[in-house]
């Protein structure tokens, strides 16, 4: 369960404060496939970063399975991400000095799990990259790189996968492939998926949608929980 309470984000733009995200509260139940939609600069990626604990909110709190992650230090946040959250970026962000296999293995090595090798190869197989495991990112196409990134996000079998415009940098065929993979993961593993996109067509495939504009929620079709208690400002 992901819960945001009165979360906002303001940054300094030159000497002026700029609010990227106005206070918002929401709940994303487990096993949901959620799309966050909105035009560029609407605060989608910022919201995703706050959920992942990659960034700290200016106010409010973010709870993952009941734990307020805004109270955690950097190292505790890193541990939480390692265990519970997988992240897929628009620009892949693979480590260029590591092979595809090593990029996938790293989160497992950090977590200190066993059987890293077989699991990493299994994940690469799942995303259709058997035989490409010893290639470096620079030797892979964009679609392949994003599939490696997806395999990396799944390395520790996290209950939550956050994807920031995962198809934004890909051609439509590769974009479709990634989306199919995400849906398959959601269905097979019951992983909660939060997908940021500005493509409404893609968003239509999700269980619920959150539409942002200028840092505010303008539409929310999330099945927040049994009593549908969505709080919106």
């Amino acid at each position, binding site marked *: 369960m992901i819960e945001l309470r009165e979360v906002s984000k303001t940054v300094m733009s030159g000497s002026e404060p700029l609010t990227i995200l106005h206070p918002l509260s929401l709940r994303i139940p487990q096993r949901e496939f959620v799309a966050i939609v909105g035009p560029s600069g609407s605060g989608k*990626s*910022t919201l*995703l*970063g706050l959920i*992942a604990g*990659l*960034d700290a909110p200016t106010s409010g709190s973010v709870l993952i399975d009941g734990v307020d992650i805004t109270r955690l230090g*950097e*190292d505790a946040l*890193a*541990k939480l*991400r*390692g*265990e519970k959250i997988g*992240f897929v*970026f628009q*620009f892949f*962000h*693979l*480590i*260029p*000095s*590591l092979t595809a296999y*090593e990029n996938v*293995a*790293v*989160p497992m*090595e*950090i*977590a*200190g799990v066993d059987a890293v090798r077989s699991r990493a190869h299994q994940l690469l197989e799942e995303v259709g990259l058997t035989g490409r495991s010893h290639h470096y990112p*620079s030797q892979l196409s964009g679609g392949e790189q994003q599939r490696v990134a997806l395999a*990396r996000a799944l*390395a*520790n079998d996290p209950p939550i996968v956050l994807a*920031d415009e995962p198809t934004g940098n890909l051609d439509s065929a590769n974009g479709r492939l990634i989306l199919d993979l995400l849906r398959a993961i959601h269905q097979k593993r019951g992983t909660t998926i939060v997908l940021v996109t500005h493509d409404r067509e893609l968003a239509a495939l999700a269980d619920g949608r959150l539409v942002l504009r200028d840092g505010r929620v303008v539409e929310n079709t999330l099945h927040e929980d049994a009593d549908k208690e969505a709080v919106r400002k």
Partner: protein
Amino acid sequence: MIFVLRMAVRETRASWKRLLFFFICIAVGVAAIVTLRSVIQSVRDVFGSEAKGLLAADVLIATNREWPPAARATIDRRLLEAGSTARTETIETPTMVRPTDRSKPVAKMVELRAVQPEYPLYGAVVLQGADRYSYALLRDHGALVRPELLTALGVEVGDEITIGQAPFAIRGVIVSEPGRRVGGFSLGPRVIIDYADLPSTGIISFGSRADRRLHAKVPDDRIDDLVRELRADFKDDFVNTRSYRSTEDQIGRDFERAENYLSLVGLIIVILGGIAVSSVTRVFILQKIRSIAVLKCVGARSAQIIAVYILQVMALGLAGSLLGVAMARGVIAAIALALGGSTSLLAQAHYGVTWSAAAQGVGIGVLVSLLFAVVPLLQVRFIKPSLLLRDESVRRRRDWLSAVTMAAVSAALVALTAWQAASLRVGVVVCAGFAGLAVVLHFAGRGLVALVAPLSASRSFPLRHAVLHLSRPGNQTRVILLAVGLGAFFIVGVRSLQASLLGEFSVQVDADAPDMFLLDVQKPQVEGVRAFLGDRSHGAGEFQLIPVMRARVTAVSGRETMLDSPEAVRQSGMSIGREFTITYRDRLESNERVVEGAFWLSPSTEPEVSVERDLAVRARLHVGDTIRFDILGRPLAARITSIRDVEWRESRNGGFVFVFRPGVLDQAPQTWVAPLKGPATPADRARFQHDLVVRFPNVSVIDFHEILETIRDVMSKVTLAITVVGGLVLFSGVLILVGAVAMTKFQRVYEAAVFKTLGANTRTIARMLLFEYGVLGSVAGAIGSLGAVALTWGVSKYALEIPWRVFPREHVAGILLTALLVASIGVLSSLDVLRNKPLATLRAE
């Protein structure tokens, strides 16, 4: 932990090529440390085990004047009591030697050693060729000589030479002998003759500078007691006693000091490498910023990531250090090979890398790499994973942990240097000095970069961009300036100093000042020598004949200083316990000035003395005080009537600390010396010496032109050594430069691609690179040259007390050569920047 290890391996695999040069720099420093320490340790082992051979005795008792009357009896008794099993005596004296063949009008000063049959008790006299030393070679006027004498006199084995009044047949050529100090200063080549033949030469006359030595074999357990007893017996006499053990200890201490100080040179190169490592780590982290953010995003803690890079740095530091040890092995093998044919003591050492030197080198290499990398690595903590979502720059931040780490690193560096120099004081001084120098070079670099900054508005496109590049983000300008500038500073500095010193000495020798010095003129010979020198046909110019005596202060009774015994004088710490050469005259020399009291104008029967000012200040002596002297065994109490300032630089006519009033010493036993202007040409000078020695066989001649040659020779060796050190420093600077180019190449390749897209051709980009590195090299050369100017000023003024001179040729050459070196290395290591096709580069970005 597995993650840290695996990541360290992967990171090293990916980036070792870019970091290679910095660790080669560490390797060079480690190689210097290991080589110096190993060689000195090997040589010390030989000298230590050969201590008896060096002394040619267990116990050596020596005096530089006649044995005091009762001394022989005392020595005999003590040696008997100590159970001495053998003894032998030698006399050493500088004297003139000439070919007996009158058709060869040359003469040369030599160091003569007269030996008895038992000589040497330890060690061996090694002769050239198949000859083996035996006393029989010396018997009946035989002589063994060093090869350089043969060359100087134009004689060979079998020919006769004349020493004093006696002819000797050359029967062998000396390669090495016990007791000759390696690298010690000598007045001339060695000649060995029979002790029994010495009187026939007639050179040992009154006041001659002869060193009489008694070598004794003594059971090992009695040596220390014997030395102690003899020292007590002769505490008031000029008799010196030492044992091979004290020699061994002294040698041990000398070598240890040499080893420690020389190793500091290596340490400085390692530290330069360390500074480069620090600088490159900072850039490296900047380049790795996204990877680090990704690692944090997938769950890595800052400490884990820092551990990855620390492990990587240590692995590269270890690799560099091991490479350094391998390099040292190569160099040491080459030394052993080069010395292979030599018969000197140095060739007897078993050269090889010693374990302790290798361990120290590797330890230092790894430790310095680690220390210098830690502080920049702490920046990893400030990298936030959120920068993967939006472009955020990471500002360099300082916090308490950085400050504490920096303090700990500084303390560790001081400790490391102190450990290497085996002295905390030296450690602190060297670190402070190095830090000071680095700060000065840093600011000089900034100043000079600011000075060339206006060129960034130049109309020339390549020049404008070249200057802008010096301050690009992640530039290595400062560290290159530091390393290359320091190397240039060493080289230009020592070259200027050499030029300055030689120039000064040449001026003194070439001017009208005396350039020859006669020693040991006996009183009855004074008039004859005066007539000889006055005879223009011999070619001598202006000359003076000065009476000299050797004296020692035995007591002082003064206003401030009261010393009532020779013991008290020796222990006063006022440097008046040594032996002084004194004279008497009734006038001041041109380089003297009375600063207190009045100088006499006429003889007197009352003993009066004039004291040189520096000594008077040191010993707190004043006009009116009385000094008691021992002048060759005769006591004399003289009242101080004046204090003189002596300009030592112009003291070729004799600079004396104590000058007596004529009247009292005139009839005392004395010898005369004569400073004079010798003939102009080398041939005339040789003939002059020959003719003089034929007439006055006991008189020795010191030729300043020959000494100048010796000084020139010694100085060029010292200069070469320091130039090699400077060269190593410069080399590490070049490595850092190549490394810096490799490190920032991706940025340059990208920029070059953009420039090419915008219409710049390869030549323009090549010129841009050439200008950039040319400017960098010129600035580094200028820093080195400016430093060298400051160094020569300081050393000239305070250490050598010679006039300060600037040698524009050395400085201009220094700047030009440094600029050329840096420009060519910079451009050569950027060749692929020029070759890359723009489209591929831009697509990759």
